[in-house]
């Protein structure tokens, strides 16, 4: 693996995005608009909105990066560029970590703008402050990127890649504690939720919202989210084969 090639790959992915201004605008602005919408949905319940909005900051980057990465890497497979790269002197990890780096940076930018809107414009208060919010959001973006890389191997078209959101991400959203506290769910669902990484991403945001200091639970949550991301990246690298 070469850092020069990894950074070149990250730069290339970001340059591609910079040429696609519509996608860039959708990635960066849609979360903000949805948060504003949420604010007015919960107009009569400001405390509920205050609890929900930070959790959304842990979900949006994961969702967006999952979609963008799975489609981008699927394109590598279907347009022949992966064929070219795999016959060149580059490691699979240069490609995978290049993608992870590029989309984590994009996640940081997205989370920064969304946090600015949420904590500034919409008046949401979090005990832990802005920096931990950004750290958790970037970890969620990294996890979304890694999962997107992994699942792109199981899709043969962009249509399928988008459909994979339903079985991979939607159950995690339903079980992560966003709608109902996890200890109010049926016991088997609580167990299942314990195995899903989005649960820990959302839980980390809850910790940041409620605690001024970095709690051990927050540390555990971050380790789980990052660990799952690294595991998904390793599994994703296995799905990219030099010989097919």
């Amino acid at each position, binding site marked *: 693996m070469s850092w020069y090639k990894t950074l070149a790959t990250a730069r290339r992915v970001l340059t591609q995005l910079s040429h696609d201004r519509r996608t860039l605008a959708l990635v960066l602005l849609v979360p903000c608009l949805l948060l504003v919408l949420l604010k007015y949905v919960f107009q009569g319940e400001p405390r509920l909105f205050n609890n929900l909005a930070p959790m959304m900051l842990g979900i949006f980057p994961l969702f967006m990066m999952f979609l963008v990465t799975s489609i981008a890497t699927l394109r590598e497979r279907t347009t022949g*560029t992966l*064929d*070219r790269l795999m016959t060149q002197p580059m490691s699979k990890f240069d490609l995978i970590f290049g993608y992870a780096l590029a989309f984590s940076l994009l996640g940081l930018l997205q989370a920064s703008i969304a946090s600015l809107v949420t904590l500034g414009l919409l008046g949401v208060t979090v005990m832990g402050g802005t920096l931990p919010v950004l750290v958790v959001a970037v970890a969620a973006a990294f996890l979304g990127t890694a999962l997107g890389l992994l699942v792109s191997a199981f899709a043969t078209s962009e249509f399928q890649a988008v459909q994979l959101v339903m079985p991979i991400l939607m159950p995690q959203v339903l079980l992560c504690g966003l709608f109902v506290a996890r200890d109010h769910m049926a016991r088997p669902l609580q167990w299942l939720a314990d195995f899903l990484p989005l649960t820990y991403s959302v839980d980390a945001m809850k910790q940041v919202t409620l605690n001024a200091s970095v709690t051990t639970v927050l540390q555990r949550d971050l380790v789980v989210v990052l660990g799952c991301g690294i595991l998904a990246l390793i599994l994703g690298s296995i799905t990219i084969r030099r010989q097919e």
Partner: protein
Amino acid sequence: MTTSAVKIQNLSVVLSGKFKALKAIDVLLAEGRITGFIGPSGAGKTTLIRSIVGRQKLTSGSITVFGLPAGSPQLREQLSYMTQESSVYTDLSARENLSYFATMFGIKRAALKPLVADILKTVDMTKQADQLASQLSSGQKQRLSLAAALIGFPKLMVLDEPTVGLDPVLRERLWKLFRQLTDGGTTLLISSHVMEEAERCDDLLLLRDGRVLAQGSPQALCDQTGTKSVEQSFLKLVGDKI
């Protein structure tokens, strides 16, 4: 006497567990020459090419390239592969595409600019350097893809249908470039289903249904079959096998 760049022994490839794309192929491909893989669609040209560049899992048999098993890490510096699709990033400019592929060969930033400018000039695309690949015509995309294959000064260039869809003037220009490359010692393997392109190659491998029908220079094939063109040779050989 020429040495062989590629040695293929008893090669068979079965795709998706059932379709026999290549059947017991035994050939030697000469170094420093243009060898054409000629045959109709579905003959096995692309599978053979993917096997040589190391992208295709072999069912049986072996391939060595410059004495090393196909797909060896040491070969990645010496080989380039142009796929049938243009295989460039359509949301990058021509220059950005080439710069990225060049970094994969470890070419440092300071050397990138002159190298990319030089390659763009070689394929006559200096004017389109900053145009997004998505805005290029299909012929220009093909040339950009070829330009990417020229990076790293490979000893072996494997080009899958490089001139398909190009106008005659451009095709002529590319064949001149191919000849210059072999004059410099590069080995070229070029697939085509256009018989008139076969006449331009030094050696030919006529393929049909995953088998080698014949191998030799265009003249040798015509002499062998008593015909006046490669197309007639191919038809005669197919007729003999039916």
